[in-house]
């Protein structure tokens, strides 16, 4: 039996790594992957609570989160592809046209 607090700790660490990745890395692809990691941490929480609460709602929502993650990845990567075609870069630092 896995204790709830241990799972919460793991998902917190996963979420923290995701945040650090979004802030530190400059490659748009890696940033998207880190967002995926954060969604995964949320999923882990949903499943852990569904397990310890004895309810199925958490599982149903984890399924929905997976669907949303897939949609987000499709559109996000499409943005990266379109950006690469126009500016020839995937580094977010080079995308500064709006910077005045």
């Amino acid at each position, binding site marked *: 039996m896995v204790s709830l607090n241990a799972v919460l700790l793991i998902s917190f660490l996963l979420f923290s790594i995701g945040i650090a990745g979004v802030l530190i890395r400059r490659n748009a692809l890696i940033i998207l992957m880190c967002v995926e990691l954060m969604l995964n941490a949320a999923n882990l929480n949903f499943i852990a609570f569904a397990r310890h609460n004895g309810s199925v709602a958490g599982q149903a929502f984890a*399924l929905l989160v*997976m*669907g949303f993650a*897939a*949609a987000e990845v*499709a559109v996000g*990567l*499409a943005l990266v*592809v379109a950006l690469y*075609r126009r500016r020839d870069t995937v580094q977010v630092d080079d995308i500064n046209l709006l910077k005045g």
Partner: protein
Amino acid sequence: MRGYASILLLILVAVALPIIILNLSRLLRPSWPSAAKYATYECGIVTTNEAREKFSVRYYLVAVMFLVFDVETVFLMPWAIQMKELAVFGFIELGLFLFLLLFGYGYIWSKGALTWE
């Protein structure tokens, strides 16, 4: 936990097999390396560049369609298992869901995203 022993065994075998085979053949074979032997195709054409090449963006659209319909299948699975219990209501619900996605399918078809230009 008992039912997962076979899966664990499968993973272990899958990891161990290449390690064993590669190390065994390294122990048994004679070793006289030369530049020609280290070429990718020893008796074939000389390689000109890296294996990591750019793919065309056309592959991206195909991959995106795969992703969307893969997730759709994931949503269909719980319905298929509970089909009798969910009865007509579930059928209508799923029909709406499928209509949305088939609408998208028709859209991308009409825009020519499925043709290989």
